[in-house]
């Protein structure tokens, strides 16, 4: 992997990102409207490399691993492409057409938040810095 020492680093960073995004009122409201159980499947980079976000029915829970229920949406990509994506350096539409991101389920709700990736990237940079990983920030 280009950006991560091991899959656990990626999981830690993305869980932290979603925890921090949950504190932003605009993003929290956007995710509330998505109203799905979403699995970010990075297991092509390691067997336990995945995180899930449950934003159904006004709830908001983030955890590593796989959820106990079938997710409404699964986005599968590598841990490195996940880092590029959250850094707003990998256009999600292009990534889907290049099959770097594979989608299973309804992506319509989540893709509505794609215009907010610029804001998410700012939060991601702070999350990485807080974790002591400012060297991973993509310029």
């Amino acid at each position, binding site marked *: 992997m280009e950006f991560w020492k091991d899959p656990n680093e990626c999981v830690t960073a993305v869980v932290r990102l979603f925890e921090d995004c949950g504190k932003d009122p605009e993003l929290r409201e956007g995710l509330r409207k998505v109203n799905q159980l979403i699995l970010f499947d990075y297991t092509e980079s390691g067997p336990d490399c995945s995180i899930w976000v449950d934003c159904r029915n006004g709830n908001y829970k983030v955890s590593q691993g796989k959820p106990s229920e079938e997710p409404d949406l699964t986005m599968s990509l590598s841990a490195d492409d996940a880092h590029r994506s959250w850094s707003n350096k990998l*256009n999600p539409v292009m990534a*889907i057409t290049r*099959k770097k*991101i594979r989608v299973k389920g309804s*992506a*319509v709700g989540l*893709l509505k938040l*794609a*215009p907010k990736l*610029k804001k998410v990237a700012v939060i991601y940079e702070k999350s990485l810095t807080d974790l002591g990983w400012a060297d991973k920030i993509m310029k």
Partner: protein
Amino acid sequence: MKYPNITFESLFGWVNRPRILYSPGIRSEVGFEMSQLGGKKAVIYTDKGLVAAGIAEMVAEEVRKSDLELVGIFDSIVQDARIDIINAGAAFYRKCGADCMIVVGGGSVMDTAKAINIMIGGGNEDFQPLADQAGLCDGAKPLPPHIAFPTTAGTGCEVTSAMVVLDTNAHAKLQVTHPYCNADLAMLDPELTVKLPAKITAFTGMDALTHAIEGITSTGAEPIADALGLHAIRLIFKYLPIAVKNPEDITARGHMLIASSLAGMCFGNTMTGGVHATAHALGALYGIPHGLANAIMLPIVMDYNVKDAAERYTMIADAMGIDVTGKKPVEAAKMAVKAVVSLKNKIGLTETLQDFKVPKDREKLMPLVELASADGQVSYNPHYLEDEDILNLYMKAI
């Protein structure tokens, strides 16, 4: 003008499908061309307006003269590619025992047919779950043979690998991508467009212009697309007023069809921006035809963007025929905006959103703003558009 200092993303992709054949009367070759693609039993997809005008019959007649078997004509397609009609169109294809499709129509017809072909290729009964996935690229395979005759100039749908479908339940337009959904062969026959009424000629021409302009100023812009988009602008500025005023001018009609395909190839690779994001929402909530919505929003969004893409708008102004010698980029960019307004007046497009009962009320505009801000195209706008920016754009357009 000398090529300015223009940047573009250091990684870009370019796709060039389909084959294109151009000639007045090229429809006479449809049987031969479909046989080369392996098709034997064709369904024609079109709409009732084109049937009534005799346009669909111009192509059907050529199919009947050939060795192809015409097994059905589906003319139920209406404005926008509606999911319920897509499903009905796929059922019709199967009922007729077809193995290929010939598409005669504008954007709604072509996008509907693309979606139908995806369902036929994938053995699907309902397009809704496919639309929800947005990107149908993983595991995508070539689809059954598909020839398109665009009858407007236009949406460029004959060349783009995406379609915009209308979810009538959610009142939302969904953008769906499939690498093989565009036609295997686009047959550009200007004789099929001479009966297009002046108003529709005007706003479909503005749709093509918007594709070219937004394709060049998109954050995904790159030099291959620029070349195609800029030439599309040259052709549109010269031939659109002629096509509107002299509908039977085959030279003008032909150049407009070519320009539409060029613009389609441009934005099909680079995406668009704020005009399309705002126009999609207007279409979904107020039923404004796509080309007309684009025409209304284009100069307003351009004006908003000038400082963020001044060099690109300078290239556009040059392609419009404006002398930009010695002009600073922002000044030249503003001249491009004025030229668009002038073109609109010349071709009789003077509508504002008020004419479509869009209320000039910040609160009542919020559903539009919400839809536009979530549109897949908005993040390609050169000026990053916050919700307040989008609201201001709509207010200016009323």
